[in-house]
């Protein structure tokens, strides 16, 4: 029996409804339990001495003074930890040629970026550990620094890791069709150079870990703010020589992650290594400067790209040359080549064209490592694609909506394989665009823009279509050799009181995973969502799974939950049929009661069934299966990824005197397949949009030529504040994936994927009559004034 999603009046119809989040009540009362809220007996704190140089030899370490600080217990160097912790190498077999040297939890004889941990000071309080760290003297001999991306491969540039030969981490060229001849004969060719700013996630909860190695039990317990507890279990076990079965990772409340907390960080592994040495709980909470210098960075790209169109605006070809610099090491275990690889996979995504060349060049440099951050590669690919499409439209005198309509894949033409060899099961570009145009009242907005312009006010409308990769299969990491599960599981059980417990391998990071799972299980079994308790984030308790990344929670974790819930329903009904001497097919479960499926008449509450099964099993027929617990796992298999699509629009005003951009309004129409909880999806979209707007307007990590990070505080690195953000209109088209019963695809990253491009196009729409154009993010007042020629030098 399948779920009749089409019928909103079906019994137990919780999938598709806004139901409250079970964890919200606790969080609004300050009753959350984040890692830093946990204190264990005999717990100590670690603070790190970090490299002040981007590249330096470590000649000596003098910790005499530090040892004298009251409360300081132990001081560790990289060599000390290397004795208990093996290094890691972040490569994946399917990213051919990717190379990166071994990385240790702390630098051994050389530091490679500002912020790399060099010495660990352990004390009875965080304050004492910090005081001690301040007194450690490290003797450095600065080495030549590789800071610039575009010259990293020049012969005159020093090689950062001589043992791997050069500064090239990875390169990939993808070519389809006859790109050069098309560009030679095309009616119009438009080219541009784009830059996206190196930025970072700025989770309000800094990275946090508390590791408790208990040698008497032979068990390591890590309380960790992480998106992927099982992956961390594997990593800690492997590198600290503990059997995997003896590492337990517990992930309670997490104060924002956005991709930042899915990676292996040297200082976190160091914390675990120290716990293993000291045999007591060790806590590490990053401070804000440490967050800026050591949380992964992302989006540091420079792209030269061009588009070829015919006289009707039909796209003939894209040619994209992407460069990215990833810092000193590829990040373990997902690697730092994925972002560039995604740019190659995703450029031109919404459009039906034949000739495609894209190349990414990924280089090392002496900066903080970069890796996957919300919407990995998408904001870059969408900015390049949509920027070029708008420029082509302007060159041809076409409306931006019209040129897209002429090129987007037809909604009824799926499945399709794109020139980048991405396979799309079913998308809705045209429907989404129609809905967007209607929601924003495009024509009225154009009139408003024209009126404003007549008054000397420069407003712009920017459109950005996009595709988004969600529900990844093992094609993302598993085939490359990483022990990162693409499969996820859910165990659902009924307790004697008729309540349901669901244990899931996906994790809650605030996006509403537990609410989403409770609705699915409630509908799948036939109980109220409030009667489902969801447990996530404990490797010793939940089925093995991948956790939360690449927008997989609802599509993968949700499907596992639905299947296990349906299986439990069958188990319950089998027992009920025996108890009621009825045909199982004639019974149903609704709102926690066994009912007659036909009439809906109540036959027995689930508590009664629970009482009999758990306490009076003697009254049931011998041999009747009575396991009121079921587990199902789910993995996608027909498509490597479930692509979603959508389109965003930005309306904004540029003050041409000051260069300041005022966001007036933002729209997003998005197709994430089956929507499980409309409110949660909308708020994921809004939150994602605002992170994208941050990247478009404010967020940029600055380094000087010596690799010094210049803006390592929240006062200097700007993120969106309430006052400058617009209201956002969110609309949906639903094209469920046919791969699963649930039909859900991911929704968490689409907002971030499209927002920067929409803003860029809107600014350029506003500036076009003035002959100015910006392509370097973030679009600061200075860059806009430079584009306008108001500042030179």
């Amino acid at each position, binding site marked *: 029996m399948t779920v009749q999603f089409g019928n909103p009046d079906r019994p137990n119809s919780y999938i598709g409804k806004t139901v*409250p*989040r079970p*964890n*919200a*009540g606790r*969080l*609004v*009362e*300050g*009753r*959350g*339990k*984040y890692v*830093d*809220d946990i204190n264990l007996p005999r717990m100590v704190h670690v603070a790190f001495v970090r490299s002040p140089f981007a590249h330096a030899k470590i000649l000596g370490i003098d910790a005499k003074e530090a040892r004298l*600080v*009251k409360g300081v217990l132990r001081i560790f160097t990289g060599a000390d930890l290397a004795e208990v912790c093996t290094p890691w190498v972040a490569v994946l077999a399917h990213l051919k040629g990717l190379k990166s040297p071994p990385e240790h939890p702390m630098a051994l004889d050389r530091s490679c970026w500002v912020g790399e941990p060099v010495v660990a000071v352990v004390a009875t309080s965080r*304050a004492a550990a910090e*005081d001690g760290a301040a007194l450690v003297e490290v003797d450095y001999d600065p080495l030549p620094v590789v800071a610039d991306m575009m010259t990293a491969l020049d012969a005159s540039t020093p090689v950062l890791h001589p043992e791997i030969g050069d500064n090239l981490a990875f390169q990939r060229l993808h070519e389809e069709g006859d790109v050069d001849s098309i560009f030679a004969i095309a009616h119009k060719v438009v080219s541009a150079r784009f830059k996206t700013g190196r930025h970072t*996630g*700025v*989770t*309000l*909860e*800094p990275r946090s870990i508390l590791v408790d190695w208990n040698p008497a039990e032979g068990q390591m317990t890590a309380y960790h703010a992480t998106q992927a507890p099982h992956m961390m279990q594997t990593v800690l076990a492997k590198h600290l020589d503990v059997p995997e079965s003896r590492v337990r990772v517990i992930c309670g*409340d*997490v*104060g*924002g*992650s*956005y991709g930042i907390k899915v990676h292996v960080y040297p200082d976190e592994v160091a914390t675990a290594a120290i716990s293993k040495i000291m045999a007591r709980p060790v806590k590490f909470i990053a*401070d*804000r400067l440490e967050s800026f210098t050591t949380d992964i960075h992302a989006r540091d790209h420079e792209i030269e790209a061009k588009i070829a169109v015919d006289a009707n605006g039909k796209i003939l070809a894209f040619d994209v040359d992407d460069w990215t610099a990833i810092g000193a090491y590829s990040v373990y275990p997902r690697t730092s080549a994925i972002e560039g690889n995604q740019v190659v996979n995703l450029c031109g995504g919404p459009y039906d064209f034949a000739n495609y060349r894209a190349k990414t060049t990924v280089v090392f440099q002496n900066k903080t490592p970069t890796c996957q951050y919300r919407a990995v590669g998408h904001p870059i690919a969408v900015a390049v694609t949509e920027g070029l499409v708008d420029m082509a439209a302007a060159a041809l005198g076409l409306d931006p909506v019209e040129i897209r309509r002429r090129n987007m894949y037809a909604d009824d033409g799926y499945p399709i394989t794109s020139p980048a060899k991405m396979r799309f099961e079913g998308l809705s570009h045209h429907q989404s665009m129609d809905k967007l145009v209607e929601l924003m009242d495009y024509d009225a907005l154009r009139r408003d823009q024209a009126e404003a312009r007549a008054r000397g006010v420069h407003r712009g409308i920017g459109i950005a279509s996009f595709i988004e990769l969600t529900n990844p299969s093992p094609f993302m990491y598993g085939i490359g050799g990483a022990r990162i599960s693409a499969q996820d599981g859910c165990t659902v059980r009924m307790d004697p009181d008729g309540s349901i417990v669901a244990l899931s391998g996906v994790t809650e*990071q*605030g*996006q*509403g995973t537990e609410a989403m799972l409770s609705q699915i299980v409630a509908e799948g079994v036939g109980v109220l969502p409030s009667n489902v308790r969801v447990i996530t984030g404990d490797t010793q308790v939940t089925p093995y799974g991948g956790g939360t990344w690449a927008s997989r929670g609802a599509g993968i974790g949700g499907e596992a939950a639905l299947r296990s819930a349906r299986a439990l329903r069958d188990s319950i009904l089998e027992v009920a049929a025996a108890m009621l001497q009825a045909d199982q097919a004639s019974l149903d479960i609704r709102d926690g009661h066994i009912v007659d499926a036909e009439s809906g008449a109540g036959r027995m509450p689930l508590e009664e069934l629970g009482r009999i099964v758990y306490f009076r099993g003697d009254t049931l027929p011998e041999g009747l299966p009575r396991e009121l617990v079921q587990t199902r796992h789910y993995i996608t298999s027909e498509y490597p990824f479930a692509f979603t699509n959508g389109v965003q629009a930005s309306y904004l005003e540029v003050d041409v005197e000051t260069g300041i951009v005022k966001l007036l309004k933002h729209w997003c129409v998005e197709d994430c397949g089956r929507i499980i909880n409309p*409110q*949660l999806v909308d*708020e994921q979209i*809004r*939150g*994602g*949009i*605002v*992170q994208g707007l941050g990247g478009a307007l404010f967020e940029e990590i600055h380094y000087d030529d010596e690799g010094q990070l210049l803006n390592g*505080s*929240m*006062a200097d690195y700007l*993120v*969106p*504040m*309430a*006052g*400058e*953000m617009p*209201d*956002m209109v969110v609309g949906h088209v639903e094209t469920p994936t046919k791969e699963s019963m649930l039909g859900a695809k991911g929704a968490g990253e689409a*907002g971030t994927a499209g927002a920067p491009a929409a803003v860029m196009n809107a600014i350029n729409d506003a500036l076009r009559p003035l002959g100015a154009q910006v392509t370097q993010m973030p679009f600061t007042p200075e860059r806009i004034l430079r584009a306008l020629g108001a500042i030179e030098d």
Partner: protein
Amino acid sequence: MTKVFADRIDIDLMVNGEPVEARVPAGQHVIDFLRQELGLTGAHASCEHGVCGTCTVRVDGASVRGCLMLAAQLDGADVWTIEGLSDSEAIRDLQEAFIARNALQCGFCTPGMLVAAEELLAQGGVPERAAIREHLSGNYCRCTGYEAIVDAVETVARQRAGQVQA
């Protein structure tokens, strides 16, 4: 360690309506005192720089950044944290509006956001959305994109002004 950090100061104050006596290091910030000494972990530390507002608590009726004020300055003060404001039901309507509107995701900013929002609401009237946004601009949220928070605060302002049913 410098002398000043070694020094300890006695303070006598009210926290969430209960008397507290403590001897605090001279350099300890209010947020660390509340979290580490009193176990009031509702307010959080994030930027420790006075920028993000996650550490916001109420001291003598005003929203204060717990990472900028020293615990030693609390002698004689009346402090309310999210725990006390919850227990006393003082902001129940606001908390319910946050839940109903999903004005929180990870919840890390939420305790500080609620204290800051209540400060605005306590001024009475129904502020414009722009005024709500302006007032909350010292409280960062990386998850929600702010709109749901503004909606929730606006709803409560209307409810309290009797414009809509609670």
